[in-house]
């Protein structure tokens, strides 16, 4: 059963149309990757799903709910969380306060969840009282994901979590994403890095706001033309 269904979404900024009727689907329990070059509309896609950008037409369905037209404050309450690519932490707050803000809408006791996050990203533990703005790139990314996990989301939207990270950190982040997925979190992962295919069940390739290909990761990796065009081989 699909947990997230994006149906012929058109959206953009001002009068500039960025997505020209894009459709995709995430099955429950899957990792789905959207690959595409810079400016292909990947970030706009996530922002439209989460209501940061309102869709001009088309529909976003999450579980049994129509999200189109909901603002981010409301979408955050549906069980989906979003980790933007840039500016994804609160720099002047401490690491611990960042996680607390992730739990802002929780009314129950979230303290145990913070400890779980520190177990999941042990590197954050000793920095819990540091200002988040002082963290290195890798730690920031862990904190950004950790903040989103505070709500125990069923679905996670990730915008290029590997950007700017050293290769061993990229591996670490992708490994963590797989682990999350094994714990039952569905993931929509937007990437430029073709390495993301290795942890995905299914992938879409988009360019210029349109879908160019879709299929299982194996199929796309095998396809020579796609390899040449989009995966840099």
């Amino acid at each position: 059963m699909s947990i997230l269904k994006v149906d012929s979404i058109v959206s953009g900024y001002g009068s500039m149309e960025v997505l020209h009727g894009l459709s995709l689907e995430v099955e429950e329990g899957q990792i789905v990757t959207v690959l595409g070059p810079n400016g292909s509309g990947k970030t706009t896609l996530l922002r439209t799903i989460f209501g940061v950008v309102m869709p001009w037409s088309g529909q976003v369905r999450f579980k049994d709910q129509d999200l189109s037209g909901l603002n981010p404050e409301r979408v955050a309450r549906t069980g989906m969380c979003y980790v933007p690519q840039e500016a994804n932490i609160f720099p002047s707050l401490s690491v611990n306060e960042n996680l607390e803000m992730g739990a802002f809408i929780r009314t129950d006791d979230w303290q145990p969840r913070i400890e779980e996050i520190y177990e999941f990203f042990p590197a954050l533990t000793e920095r819990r009282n540091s200002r988040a703005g002082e963290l290195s790139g890798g730690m920031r990314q862990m904190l950004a994901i950790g903040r989103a996990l505070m709500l125990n989301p069923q679905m996670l939207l990730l915008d290029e979590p590997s950007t700017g990270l050293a290769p061993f950190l990229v591996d670490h982040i992708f490994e963590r994403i797989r682990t999350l997925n094994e714990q039952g979190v569905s993931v929509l992962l937007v990437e430029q890095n073709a390495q993301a295919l290795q942890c995905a069940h299914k992938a879409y390739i988009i360019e210029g706001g349109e879908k160019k290909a879709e299929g299982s990761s194996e199929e796309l990796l095998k396809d020579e033309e796609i390899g040449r065009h989009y995966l840099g081989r």
Partner: protein
Amino acid sequence: MAELIVYGIVLGSIIALGSVGLTLIWGITDLFNVAHGDQITFGAYIALLFSGLFSHIGFLQVKVGPFSFHWGLLVAFIPAILVSILFAIVVDHFVYKPLRRSGAHFITGFIASIGVAWALRGVIYIIWGADFHFYTQGLRPMLFLPLDIKLRVDEIFIALVAWLSVGGVYLFLYRTKTGKALRALSDNSNLAQISGINTERMIKWVWGLAATLIAIAGILYAIETQLRPEMGWIFLLPLFAAIILGGKGSITGALAGGLVLGIAQQVSTAFLVPTYKPAVAFIIMILVLIFRPTGILGRRKI
């Protein structure tokens, strides 16, 4: 000189108090609120209204310890704060919120706040006239301290209340969930929304918080000097200088900036005619903007 520094600390406490509210609003709503000064005046006059009312009905007309004012004025802090909060939230609702909604440029908000400032000052002129007012008539008890420092007893009260209020706000921002959310919003409003923080509700909170400090600052400033319709408008300049010195949205920056401004202005009177006090604030502001536009403690460009 020691005396001037002490005066500077007293003045600096009031500047710090006034500028914390201003920098909070600036950091969270992106509004550089020019009406802040006149809201300070308004707070002082509301307290005058109530303390006058109390003296009319003979309520609490006992002097507070060694200070120059009656208990009635202390009680008048409460209605002054409440009216100040109400005013701020109503103005935000009818003026700034529609501008935020329409995604207006921050300059539009800036100009709108000039309008609010003039309108409010007009109302103050209409109700209370252009004359000076005092909370209490008569002598102001003095204190003679070592190093040849003469201090009005009231000034100890002023500095004490100012720092207690600032301390209270500090605790609120760093210890409570709403306070942390306000700081988060000031840091990264997009991410705050994505985290489910209701920005409009938080903006009401920050206006309430700022308006509380505004009213207290107004009353303290009026105790220190006197009430006149232009008092807050003129006071705005050192406030701006203090928060620019401290950096956008930085509370500790505003506190430090306020103290620096207060001391610099008072100490300057040893070398310059007191009329030039505002010029000192101006020069500090210009130097900061030229050499360190993020402010001393700030991280963001203005």
